[in-house]
């Protein structure tokens, strides 16, 4: 390839919208997105431990008072109205509803975690539990978007899009940003991993991890009618034709980039098949994660980050499975049972592979649940009065791994777990912190579009220092 200066290279590829849109990634930093390969790995603003992210999205809103935020005071008022007024949530709520699950102090830190996450809690000394999360409204749709994109209604890039835009990805043979949800898409579907105004290449690649065959996971990854050797022959001829074509057309990196892309694609076919084939894992690893689609998705997450995928999201299942308006005890037990072992195994696995310190794991829903029961409303619930409503006033998210201060609790909700009162952490603050952990100053990490320099955190966000190691 003709030796280009990078400036030339970028300049030449600004044909479409490449240069103008992608170059000013960070004006004050000597970094720019390679428009020909926008997924090439890049350095963040400052050195950081976390290099990649696994977001375990408990879509639907798990209850904080049944998992990571013990509220013994609820017992005192069991079946009675709380002495405080119930905060306004989506539906009518009633009396105090103490957790049916037992909390115990775990690890050296003694952080209390309920039995729902007993396995995960074995790693509690590596986990930072943020008990003072809060969001804006008690409705799923805006809260999904807020958590996943930092904006409740308008079109904005998702967290994973920002991260791959900022860091590129380490393995060009796999998509840089993969989002899994076994059995179907979460509520709002692809909006959760949309790239907004960023180029399409930064959109999450959705994978229905219920499937096991690679060609049902990644579009066009396998050729059903041409053998690998015949395809190799095709690509060899293609290479000859393309280089003859290129000889007469100097100084055009777009031609070179396209030539390269076929070789990458060829390798991606085998690499992806390998990455998604969990049968290659030893028996004891499979056993450690446990049975089920959730467990398998978490194992896949590990296989993907191991191979250099930058951002992996694992949602729990179609629509909003954690949304326990009725039968909370039964449903939460079932849901936690599907992931608890897997999460614990994932953390152990990453530690074993030496990846834990460089992988940021985030667990949480779009909001939490009320510490009081939801009252019957026709059409809204089954009227069993044994579930909890949505609660955006206070909930729990935890983080672990790269740069996170383990064995820590950040913030607190009130006596009953309704509202974040101590060191409240808004979703924007969480995002600022995640970016910080990856080496970005969230206020300088921008993309210019429609006359504005957009940020993941818009005009908000503060880094939660207490969560940093």
């Amino acid at each position: 390839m003709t030796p280009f200066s990078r400036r030339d290279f970028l300049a030449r590829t600004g044909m479409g919208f490449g240069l103008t849109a992608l170059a000013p990634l960070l004006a004050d930093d000597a970094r720019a997105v390679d428009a020909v390969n926008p997924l090439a790995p890049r350095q963040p603003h400052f050195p950081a431990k976390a290099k990649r992210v696994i977001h375990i999205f408990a879509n639907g809103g798990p209850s904080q008072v049944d998992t990571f935020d013990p509220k013994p005071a609820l017992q005192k008022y069991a079946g009675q109205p709380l002495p405080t007024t119930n905060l306004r949530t989506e539906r009518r709520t009633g009396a105090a509803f103490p957790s049916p699950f037992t909390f115990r102090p775990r690890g050296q830190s003694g952080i209390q975690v309920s039995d729902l996450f007993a396995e995960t809690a074995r790693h509690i000394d590596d986990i930072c539990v943020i008990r003072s999360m809060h969001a804006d409204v008690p409705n799923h749709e805006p809260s999904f978007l807020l958590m996943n994109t930092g904006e409740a209604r308008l079109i904005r890039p998702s967290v994973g899009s920002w991260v791959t835009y900022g860091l590129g990805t380490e393995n060009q043979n796999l998509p840089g940003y993969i989002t899994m949800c076994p059995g179907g898409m979460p509520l709002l579907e692809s909006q959760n991993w949309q790239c907004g105004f960023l180029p399409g290449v930064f959109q999450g690649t959705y994978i229905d991890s219920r499937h096991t065959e690679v060609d049902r996971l990644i579009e066009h990854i396998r050729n059903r009618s041409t053998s690998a050797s015949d395809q190799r022959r095709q690509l060899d001829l293609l290479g000859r034709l393309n280089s003859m074509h290129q000889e007469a057309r100097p100084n055009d990196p777009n031609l070179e980039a396209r030539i390269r892309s076929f070789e990458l694609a060829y390798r991606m076919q085998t690499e992806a098949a390998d990455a998604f084939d969990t049968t290659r894992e030893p028996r004891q690893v499979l056993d450690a994660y446990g049975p089920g689609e959730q467990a398998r998705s978490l194992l896949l997450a590990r296989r993907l980050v191991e191979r250099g995928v930058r951002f992996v999201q694992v949602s729990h299942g179609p629509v909003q499975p954690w949304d326990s308006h009725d039968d909370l005890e039964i449903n939460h037990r079932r849901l936690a049972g599907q992931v608890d072992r897997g999460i614990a195994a994932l953390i152990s696995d990453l530690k074993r592979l030496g990846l834990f310190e460089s992988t940021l794991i985030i667990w949480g829903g779009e909001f939490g649940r009320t510490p009081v029961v939801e009252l019957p409303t026709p059409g809204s619930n089954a009227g069993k009065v044994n579930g909890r409503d949505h609660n955006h006033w206070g909930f729990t998210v935890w983080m672990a791994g790269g740069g996170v201060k383990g064995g820590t609790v950040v913030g607190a909700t009130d006596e009953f777990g309704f509202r974040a009162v101590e060191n409240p952490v808004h979703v924007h603050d969480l995002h600022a912190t995640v970016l910080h952990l990856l080496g970005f100053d969230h206020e300088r990490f921008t993309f210019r579009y429609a006359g504005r320099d957009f940020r993941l955190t818009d005009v908000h966000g503060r880094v939660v220092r207490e969560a940093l190691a």
Partner: protein
Amino acid sequence: MTRWFAALPVLALAAAPAVADPSAKLTPEQTHFFETKIRPVLAERCYSCHGEKKQSAGLRLDTAVGVQKGADDGAVVVPGDPAKSRLVKSVKREGDFAMPPKQGLPAEQVADLTEWVRMGAPFPADMTGPKTGADPTKHWAFQPVRVPDPPATKQPAAHPIDRFVLAKLEAKGMTLSAPADKRTLIRRAYYDLIGLPPTAEEVEVFEKDGAPDAFEKVIDRLLASPHYGERWGRYWLDVARYADTKGYVFQEDRNFAFAYTYRDYVIRSFNEDKPFDRFLVEQLAADRLPLGDDKSPLAAMGYLTLGRRFLNNSHDIIDDRIDVVTRGMMGLTVACARCHDHKYDPIPAKDYYSLYGVFASSVEPKELPLIGEAKHTPETEAYEKELAKKKADYDAERTRRYTAALAKLRTPDSIGDYLRAVLDARGKNPEQMQGFVRDRDLSQVVFGRWRPYLTDQLKAGNPVFTPLAALHTIPEAEFATKATAAIDSLPKDKTHPAVKAALAAAKPKTLREAANAVGKAIVDGKGDPALGAVFAAGGPLDIPAVDGDKLFNRLDRDQLNAIKKKIDAFQAMNPNAPPRAHVLNDGGVQEPVVFLRGNPGNRGPAVPRQMVAVAAPAGRQPFKSGSGRLELAQAIASPANPLTARVYVNRVWVGHFGHGLVRTPSDFGVRSDPPTHPELLDWLAHQFVTNGWSVKRLHKLVMTSATYRQGSAAPDAVFRADPENKLLGHQNRRRLDFEAMRDTVLVAAGKLDRTVGGRAVDLFKAPFTVRRSVYGMIDRSNLPGTFRVFDVASPDQHSPQRFLTTVPQQALFLMNSPFVQEQAKALAARPEMASAGNPDLRVIALYRLALGRTPTATELALGREFVADSSAGRWEQYAQVLLLSNEFAFAD
């Protein structure tokens, strides 16, 4: 690689944003701190009393001067000394005035303000107060279009475009490249105008045509092709963020049933060379034009209506419309002024809300208007019949639920519940009241009817209700013991006998029982006008069927929506549904106010509905007619508008050169790069307008220039001198976009369906459609992965220009997708291939079909070698290789 790295800082400098004002003495850190920590707090919490409109105590905190001057009674800020600054004391709620009065600032913001004062209270002078920097209203794009004369050039040039371009090149000691060869030129012209390749025969005819106007004839022929509108219509659909679905809309049907009528309108308009000004006006206000019998232009309004629905948030829907209109038509980023005045361009938030008012005064009708003549065939009649039946079923179900809901409200217990609720709610603020109604599982709407009614009746001493009010004064704990006596002693003249009787008979132990007894008296005594008044006209329980929606609970709504969804889907999917237009109509005029910080709950000053100042003629007047949409449209599509014509000629330039004279096609604001050829841009804009806004004439004007017709190769010297080709010393090689690529694959396979218009088709579901890509279904909620991978314009928002990325997923589609394999197979089986007598002739035939030319000797040899072993599928594999080649994918 090292060379790239070394060059990085240069690039970074080039890309640095033009930071605000040169005269501001603030350090970047100070500016940053102020803009992120201080100004937002001041704006949100202080400006409403100490801002531009209102200066309580003479204090103004939105300008440097104001902060310096302080309040009527003296300074509020002592720079560097928070302890002496009254502003700091106030927000700490320590001084004489605790500020903001109602609710204090969070500790963090107090700390920031304190820190800011400690820093010396630095305040950027550029944003407010007297402007000392460049005046943004003087920015080139906001000046009237000039009529420059093409400059003189050393090299003779007849075409004005070439004179503008040559003058710049010659100043750098450069010149235009040699003309492209004829094959390259005709292929370029085909892709530029119709997005399809010429056949080998068409190329040869052109090569042989020695007439001086040979190329002009090609241009004319292509402009007359119906495929021209498909190509240029698709470009406009990018601008219009076109999609066939609404995105996520809860449980509703997601389809825009008639989006395709807008797409077809756009295609037709380009094909008819509809004057561009008219095209713009129709898209904003066809409903306000005298259309005569042909209502088809109503479909134009899909430009406004076919956006995302943002969880049905009306403010965001309007924001999307403002954005698509201002960026799409004028290259103005007005949506930046939603929360505050535009940071760079002279677009105040007031102008945003002027446009907001126009769209807030426009509504989408429930029944979309029919366009075109209704056909009467057995199929359409069956469809109409089925639709009518479905609608009747829906109406019947709705009536049933309405009747049931109303009947429930008219029972004694329900009446009792509301009576009691109104009495209990007295003295509560609206928010408490809302929570209280909700906790009792009552309807806010019905409560909202009962409350004023009952309040009035009690004031007037209505004997039906006053007894209950009297009983309400008994403390709850004592009710059981005291009620009987209280009932006995109810004053006769103020107690309706039936009410008294009912209460006496009920012997209520609780207020609830008493209220229900009153309810029973009312229901039983309906015939008595005094008792029956609640059911009579104007009474709280006189709820007409049209308001039925308000009575429904979630279950009712969910079930009715489920039926409605089926009806909508039926209309959207049924090929016999007669075409309709997704229009807007004028609704009740809403006089807008500024929403401070973009928050609808935070109402600022009222503003008139009018044109944004920066693009309005002198003496701007508020809109007068209806919503003002038509006047807005006319102000945009006006020759006097400094932006509209410039922005569109630039878009056309993008379509012919790969990038514009202004390289940010939807942002002509202060921060955009200046045009590479400002005089040329103005000259083209002027030509465009004086040629009656004819887009076709504009194409021809551009394409007949030597600048357009030159070769695209960039020799080293030219490349070094001008790597970004800003001076246009050569044409630009362009990669086919997804649509052109896919359509060309179908042409090569001999299968392209050339039908124009119609409902959207799924491009990715087997059996694969062979229609042009422009007719592919664009599902905004789940945009097909292949669209994303190939940088097809995102339908989420207005798309200024497509990205150009190269990723392996594109290659995977071409290598492995059943679609491409199917076409490769078809290509290998075309009659021209079958009839070729030997492998060499077949290779030649293949080249002609796929690439429109004869292969070279080397290529022929390679082909021969590839198929030599005669294995099964070799020719298909070979055909596919040609479809994958760079030659196929790029137009020189």
